[in-house]
């Protein structure tokens, strides 16, 4: 916490600290920068609201209607929101177990000398720009999924998720979710790893001393301690997946509509991808509509991120006792 500079300030009685002009200017500039951040964020919310307002109050038939057929803003944004939530949730389902394993490997299984370097390798994954993941997903991952999705359609077609018809080029929701999973993996891993590394050594040694195998030690000491870290990491990853744009824009073949079918060419777009696809050619009220969908996205990610922060902070209070 910020107790660092409390010492030299004696605000009591006779020895009042001398406030030099330099001090005042510098402190003012620092506080000003802090306030500026608040202003910027308020600006983001206000300007988006102002620009979204015309779309929110417009008559339904004035709105762009590729999928909703003139039924107003809610009907326009709902399939997009559905696509956003579906792709992000799928990505999370794939990435979280994998991330927990990777974090465990780095924190408890890898040779001690290697673990930092390995962690750095996983962090590099987070540094790759999303456009490159998009190109990679389309050029490498999508063709790879074509034979398995055919098989899924033939053998598990009775499950709505795999109803098909299977895409011949692989631009499916499944591939989009997998690319998203790769992109959020390093984020979830980083948070989980930090928490796993903080597991009290005494707990671990106690478990081992009682004869636990390494996995039992992890089960008894590390995972219970790290549970909130896993949850908050997953939430942060979800926030990132919800807002991810380019990878989805490139990979997903979009036709609008709400469907759980993961392996066909007709998929719901996501809010972010829809903005990236439509914005360059939009004018007038269409722009306002897109900004309004952006506002919805902002609100959703905000809620998810706040939940994640809440979990992290609650844990911080809890672990302060240790």
């Amino acid at each position, binding site marked *: 916490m*910020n107790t*660092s*500079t409390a*010492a030299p300030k004696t605000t009591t009685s006779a020895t009042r600290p*001398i406030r030099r002009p*330099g*001090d005042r200017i*510098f402190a003012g500039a*620092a506080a000003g*920068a*802090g306030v*500026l*951040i*608040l202003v*910027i*964020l308020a*600006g983001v919310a206000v*300007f*988006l609201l*102002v*620009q979204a307002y015309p779309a929110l109050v417009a008559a339904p038939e004035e709105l762009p209607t590729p999928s909703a057929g003139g039924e107003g803003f809610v009907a326009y944004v709902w399939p997009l929101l559905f696509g956003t939530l579906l792709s992000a949730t799928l990505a999370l389902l794939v990435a979280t177990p994998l991330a927990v*394993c*990777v974090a465990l490997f780095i924190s408890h*299984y*890898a040779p*001690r000398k290697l673990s930092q370097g*390995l962690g750095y*390798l*996983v962090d590099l*994954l987070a*540094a*790759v*720009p*999303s*456009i*490159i993941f998009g*190109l*990679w997903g389309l050029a490498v991952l999508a063709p790879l999924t074509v034979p398995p999705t055919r098989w899924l359609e033939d053998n598990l077609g009775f499950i709505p998720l795999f109803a098909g018809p299977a895409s011949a080029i692989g631009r499916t929701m499944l591939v989009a979710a997998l690319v998203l999973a*790769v992109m959020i993996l390093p984020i979830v*891993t980083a948070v989980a790893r930090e928490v796993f590394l903080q597991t009290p050594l005494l707990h*671990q040694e106690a478990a081992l001393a009682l004869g636990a*195998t390494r*996995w039992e*030690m992890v089960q008894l000491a590390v995972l219970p301690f790290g549970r909130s870290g896993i949850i908050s990491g997953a939430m942060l990853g979800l926030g990132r997946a919800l*807002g991810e*744009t*380019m990878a989805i*824009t*490139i990979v997903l073949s979009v036709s609008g509509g709400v469907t759980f079918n993961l392996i066909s060419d007709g998929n719901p777009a996501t809010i*972010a991808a829809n*903005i990236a696809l439509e*914005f*360059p050619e939009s004018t007038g009220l269409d722009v306002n509509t*897109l*900004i309004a969908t*952006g506002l919805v*996205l902002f609100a959703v*990610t*905000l809620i998810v*991120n706040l939940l994640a922060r809440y979990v992290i902070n609650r844990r911080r209070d809890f672990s302060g006792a240790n």
Partner: protein
Amino acid sequence: MTTTAPRSAERAVDTPLTTVPRVGGVLPRWGTWAVLAAAAALVGGLLALVGFSISLFILATALLFGVAVYLWSRVIEGRRRAKDRLVTITVTGAFLLALAPLVSVVVTVLLKGLERFDPMFFTYSMSGILGPGGGAYHAIMGTLIITGLAAVMSIPIGLLAAIYLVEYGRGRLARAITFFVDVMTGIPSIVAGLFAVALFALFVGPGARLGIMGAIALSVLMVPVVVRATEEMLKIVPNELREASYALGVSKWRTIVKVVLPTAVAGIAAGITLAIARVIGETAPLLITVGLTTAVNLNPFAGRMATLPVFSYYSYASPGIPREAFVDRAWTAALVLIIIVLGLNLIARLIARVFAPKTR
């Protein structure tokens, strides 16, 4: 760390307790490797009969390996140790699986990007070029200018805000800033772009596309990263240094500028480099704020500019004829981008390591 007890010592402890029935011994040290080799050979042989596929080979080998080790260990060492071995294999496998995309991405971009990685790519723009040839000079310059502008705007703000939080911040304002910096970290990049659009729609008029808009959108993304990185670094500056400086009668701001910041400068520089690396590859906000041109435009205050990520996106998503020329340029742009980003990451690590304070 004492994660594994040496097997031999464990047995030595066990031996006197012969009255307690204990299931068998321990797998030999080479056991797991032998199983892995056997599994690979078996799967390879079987697949050779029906048609080889590398992904299927790896998948089947991993599965067979896990099952075989589990069963063998279960027979010899008992259920608990078998499970432990299975988890070790799973966790290691998960790590390798996580690295696979990274390797695949780098290899793919290298292979496809080297096609057009020639001097022409770095010296020509796309002005007047319809088919093959041309380059991304305009996009590279655009990316550097816009990212540079974003850095110029966000580094001072981020630095000062972090200094405020660590050195001055008390009470509600500091808590509010900490909270909202967290919120800002989570802003989707496309929303940052929309913010710039909304801002300039009010002041310049709708439909504006300017380099500066992109720079503003990028700074919204960059500021919280700079604040976080700087804050972390300032917090680990030992308090004794500040107190020693105060004891010599040095004023607070000079203490910060002359003592605190120099101590933390390596970490801060590394953090800022990473922040730049994060925004330099952003596509979505630039796509909607800056657009794309074919000619060189070095003025961020007038008209559309080209940037590497957007150039790459449009070359791939809406190619001209012949398609290959455009796709090749897209991959080369991606390669240049990945070189820049990974290079910045490497530089950041080097800065952090080489210039780290010697006090710790």
